């Protein structure tokens, strides 16, 4: 609801909607189907046999016995503590999402002069939003040598308003006693070491952080769900089922997406599979093989797949690359010896998720495999 900018629904609905309008479509669909929702309600614990302990002001303390669960807690922002910025600890250091909530929902303006650390999408979108509301965005600093958000946001949020972006730069120190007065920016080498002599003091009253998102899995851990240290989310199969039978997970709780449309699609799939599980339609005789991240691939979701699913339908694999390659590449799926399928891309960038489909017609090849690896190679 705080994401009031456009760009939602382009893939799924073929419309360019703001966040609240996109959300409203699904709220209305849910209400028209008669789905019961407990709002302002917190799940305090989930057991591995799917018993939920729930609490809310309206309903009090409730226990629910679920036949299937879809975890959809989303993700949270990394904060100052997680990136350990030295210096003073004044007021005026916020995550981009916090500032977004204040500006777009609650009607508070957090700053006049802003420096943004990190080139995530929310940071770039807030650069434009704060400019609209009269603030001066001095600089966006990105420690990596490439943009971490979408290229379209570089154009329509930064370049349109002449907001400078400095790659290979970070904040060395925050200055100011009660309120932020300045940050000291510095250039870094390829190992992220500060380069002496490149320091620059940028006066500002606010530092916004857009330095990554973490899947929110405190509840998943309690339920015995195993987490992948690379994605920060559960290990899932092609139906988005976790290692705990009957517990599924979908969206940013599994891995951080760029596009809400794909989050919604993951939700459709996990919801369908959870419903099938609940009415005992799931095939118990799974023949799983692992999916492995190969050359220039950081991770692949799902982590494993049931070969029998592929006999019936296509399976979409989603991944992030380790390094940008600004030239045509092949995304190749192979079993160690033989190529199963490959897809051309004009380039790959860490900020932009890569997908490749395994098709039902690949079943013959995949059924012989003990595992699949995805490599990305220049064409």
């Amino acid at each position: 609801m705080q994401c009031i900018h456009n760009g939602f629904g382009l893939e799924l609905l073929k419309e360019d909607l703001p966040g609240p309008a996109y959300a409203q479509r699904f709220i209305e669909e849910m209400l028209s189907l008669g789905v019961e929702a407990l709002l302002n309600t917190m799940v305090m614990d989930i057991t591995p046999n799917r018993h939920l302990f729930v609490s809310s002001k309206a309903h009090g303390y409730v226990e629910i016995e679920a036949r299937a669960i879809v975890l959809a807690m989303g993700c949270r922002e990394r904060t100052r503590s997680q990136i350990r910025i030295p210096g003073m600890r004044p007021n005026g250091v916020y995550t981009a999402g916090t500032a977004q909530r204040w500006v777009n929902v609650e009607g508070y303006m957090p700053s006049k002069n802003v420096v943004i650390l990190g080139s995530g999408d929310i940071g770039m979108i807030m650069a434009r939003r704060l400019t609209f509301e009269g603030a001066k965005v001095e600089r966006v600093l990105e420690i990596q040598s490439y943009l971490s958000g979408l290229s379209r946001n570089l154009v329509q949020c930064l370049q349109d308003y002449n907001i400078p972006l400095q790659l290979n730069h970070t904040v060395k120190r925050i200055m100011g006693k009660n309120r932020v007065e300045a940050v000291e920016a510095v250039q870094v080498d390829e190992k992220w070491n500060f380069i002496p002599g490149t320091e620059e003091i940028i006066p500002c009253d606010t530092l916004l952080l857009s330095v990554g998102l973490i899947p929110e899995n405190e509840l998943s851990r309690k339920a015995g769900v195993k987490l992948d240290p690379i994605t920060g989310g559960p290990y899932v199969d092609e139906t988005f089922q976790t290692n705990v039978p009957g517990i599924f997970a979908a969206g940013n709780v599994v891995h951080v997406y760029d596009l809400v449309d794909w989050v919604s699609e993951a939700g459709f799939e996990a919801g369908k599979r959870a419903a099938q599980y609940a009415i005992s339609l799931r095939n118990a005789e799974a023949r799983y093989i692992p999916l492995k991240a190969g050359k220039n691939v950081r991770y692949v979701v799902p982590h494993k797949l049931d070969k029998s699913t592929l006999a019936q339908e296509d399976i979409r694999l989603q991944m992030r690359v380790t390094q940008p390659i600004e030239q045509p590449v092949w995304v190749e799926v192979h079993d160690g010896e033989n190529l199963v399928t490959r897809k051309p891309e004009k380039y790959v960038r860490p900020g932009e998720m890569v997908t490749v489909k395994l098709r039902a017609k690949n079943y013959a090849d995949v059924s012989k495999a003990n595992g699949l690896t995805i490599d990305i190679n220049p064409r």
Partner: protein
Amino acid sequence: MAEEVNLICTACPQGCTLTAVIENGEVIEVLGYNCKKGIAYGIEEIKDPRRMVATTVKVKNGFHPLVPVYTDKPVPKPLIPKVLEEVRKVELTAPVKVNTVVLENVLDTGVNVITSRDMPTKA
């Protein structure tokens, strides 16, 4: 003499790298596109760049003090500050429904500014 301008397409999240070939002020060719939207973007971005604009307006007696709004079509880029100025003058009273027009034909652009969510009254 043809001139080449590199662009990043913003028509969808793919962010394709385009090259617009310009001769005598006219775009004669767009290179690097992956779909029809890319050609249209390349031409428009040179001749008449446009953007969707999303912001908020004040709402009295609402569950929140602001209601989000957006332009129902892209507006010419140079007009964005003036559009924002017009939107800033608007004040609504809750309850407000989604898709309510809050500014009709803003600055004669043929574009309406509409709400993007319901805003119920204060509980």
